[in-house]
């Protein structure tokens, strides 16, 4: 049973605080994604787990054993990097074999293991190729195979899909999830791509400025963001100026909108953050506006609507094909139950 725990981990680089006090527990067989913008500390957390950096304070535990000061090569971790990290002088098979050799496994077992793992990532036919003879997607699959070949306790993935094109990224993302589930390996995945994190994770940790803003299931992170930062960072968000009108209501223009909770005083100006799918077109009783853009996206159409009263453009999702053109008048209703009320300081 392998778990990975960060206990109050702090890391600074000179005057810059990369990690403030990270507390995170990855359960056995779980895949947690650390999601956040560049410089939020997610890669630092991963590098500390891998042993490439050491925490200034706090502890890193693997199955409750303290590995905070253990050097990288003595931790049993598998890591896949953002840039293709295959050794250019070795064939695909020899790359996968590298970790097994360092563990001094005998040749027969090594060859069997390499064959097994290349079979798992469906690249056995490329075993004798060199890294420059395979595509980017294949290279990352080999990197994954190489990381898994040594049967690591924890798998660390540092934006492994970001250098790939969209189609390969989706395929490989699903493949990583399939393999991770099949092997039941505890995994920490770092990404700045929210779609990737939402699709692949058991839980998502959203990070900002070295702090973990929210750690929850993808559904909860999306539907009930704990802060305005999370709300903005995960998914699209409309921002509407509003005024607090009670504990469970705000006023947007002249319209009252029911929200789950407000923490601000009555009459305070706030910013109401609403997802595009929580806005809908109605025949009557909504906020009037004019369609500015109409973007067909296959299964849905995204409308840009300039609201008369607020003079802001909001995005509205309409299922299927919307029979609307720029310039047409519409009315927009707001479902505020999942909206976030952000104070304006």
């Amino acid at each position: 049973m392998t778990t990975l725990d960060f206990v109050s981990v702090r890391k600074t680089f000179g005057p810059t605080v990369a990690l403030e006090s990270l507390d995170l527990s990855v359960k056995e067989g779980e895949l947690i994604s650390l999601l956040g913008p560049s410089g939020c500390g997610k890669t630092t957390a991963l590098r500390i787990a891998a042993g490439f950096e050491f925490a200034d304070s706090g502890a890193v535990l693997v199955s409750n054993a303290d590995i905070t000061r253990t050097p990288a090569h003595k931790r049993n971790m598998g890591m896949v990097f953002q840039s293709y990290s295959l050794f250019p002088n070795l064939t695909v098979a020899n790359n996968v074999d590298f970790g097994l050799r360092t563990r001094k496994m005998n040749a027969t077992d090594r060859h069997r293991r390499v064959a097994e793992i290349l079979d798992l990532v469906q690249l056995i036919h490329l075993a004798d190729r060199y890294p420059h003879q395979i595509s980017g997607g294949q290279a990352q699959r080999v990197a994954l195979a190489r990381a898994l070949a040594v049967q690591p306790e924890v798998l660390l993935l540092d934006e492994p899909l970001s250098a790939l094109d969209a189609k390969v990224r989706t395929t490989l993302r699903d493949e990583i999830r399939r393999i991770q589930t099949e092997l039941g390996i505890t995994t920490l995945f770092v990404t700045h791509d929210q779609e990737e994190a939402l699709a692949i994770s058991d839980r998502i940790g959203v990070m900002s400025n070295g702090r973990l803003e929210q750690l929850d299931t993808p559904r909860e992170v999306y539907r009930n963001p704990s802060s305005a930062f999370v709300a903005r960072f995960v998914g699209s968000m409309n921002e509407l100026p509003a005024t607090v009108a009670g504990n469970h209501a705000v006023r947007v223009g002249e319209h009252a909108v029911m929200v789950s909770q407000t923490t601000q005083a009555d009459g305070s100006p706030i910013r109401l953050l609403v997802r595009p799918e929580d806005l809908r077109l109605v025949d009557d009783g909504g906020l009037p506006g004019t369609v500015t853009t109409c973007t067909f996206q296959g299964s849905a159409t995204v409308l840009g609507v300039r609201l008369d009263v607020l003079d802001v453009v909001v995005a509205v999702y309409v299922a299927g094909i919307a029979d609307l053109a720029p310039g047409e008048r519409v009315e927009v209703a707001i479902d505020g139950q999942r909206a976030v009320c952000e104070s304006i300081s």
Partner: protein
Amino acid sequence: MIPVVVEPEIGGPPTAPTSGAPLGVGRPRSRFGRLVPNVVLVVSAVFFAMPLLALARFALQNVPTVLLGWDTLFDKWSLKGVTGVFKEEQFWASLRLSLKLAFGTVLITLFLLLPTAVWVHLRVPKARSFVEFVTVLPYMIPAIALVAGIVVIKPQARWFLNSDLSLIPFYVVLALPFTYRSFDAGLKALDLRTLVDASRSLGAGWGTTVMKVLVPNLRTSIIYASFLTAAVVMGEYTLADTLLIESLPPFQQKFVGREPQAGYGVNLLALVSTTLLFAMVALLTRKRDPKRKTFARAAANAALTSDKAQNNT
């Protein structure tokens, strides 16, 4: 003999996507644009070959210098002058010493400079420009300045300077501008940090990482650095002459004084050998290991072995 710095070519095309359009793609070049590189190439070739040809005529044609002209171009060519040097005992002793010095200099250069270059790239990348400046100093300060320094320390370091091999540390310094640049170019072409991290995450210590990951991927740089260092040693005259050590260049100088024609023949031979060596380096660094055992074969062997083991049990 002044060695030429050649930018090393690092093993194979990059695996990471590169920005910009691939070579050869884009606006077709004008006739003038196509002509200029060819003209430069021809002029360079002539500039390189003409002195060699003149030297060859002087050294290998048994014709008085005043009579060397177009009408005697093909007259009385002979290798006799050059082959005469092989009968000189001192030639072989000097050659052996120069080779020993070259070998020692290459070893020490690799041992000192490669880890330094890796360390600078990995741990203190901000110091790169400073290190580059330091390594270029021997190029800016003439060897004669080094000689002046040696003269100053000679009374105190006679025990060391009396040895023929005392030239090695000075040659390491003299070769620095070429060797460091070669390693630096090789390291810049690698995603060094990721490769090192990948190797360490797979359980390799620093020794394994250097020997199994860095050295093979810096093969071209190492070969170039070694050849450049050897070329510096084989051609260095000032220091050897000052320390009264008769390596190949001082021998050549004396030999030219004694037998000018044969002496220049030997110089020509040295130049041609160096050129051929660098051509060979270019070939060497492209070649893949033909004896590489394929995974398919190895896996089949493994399967056979395990089948046999199962049958035996």
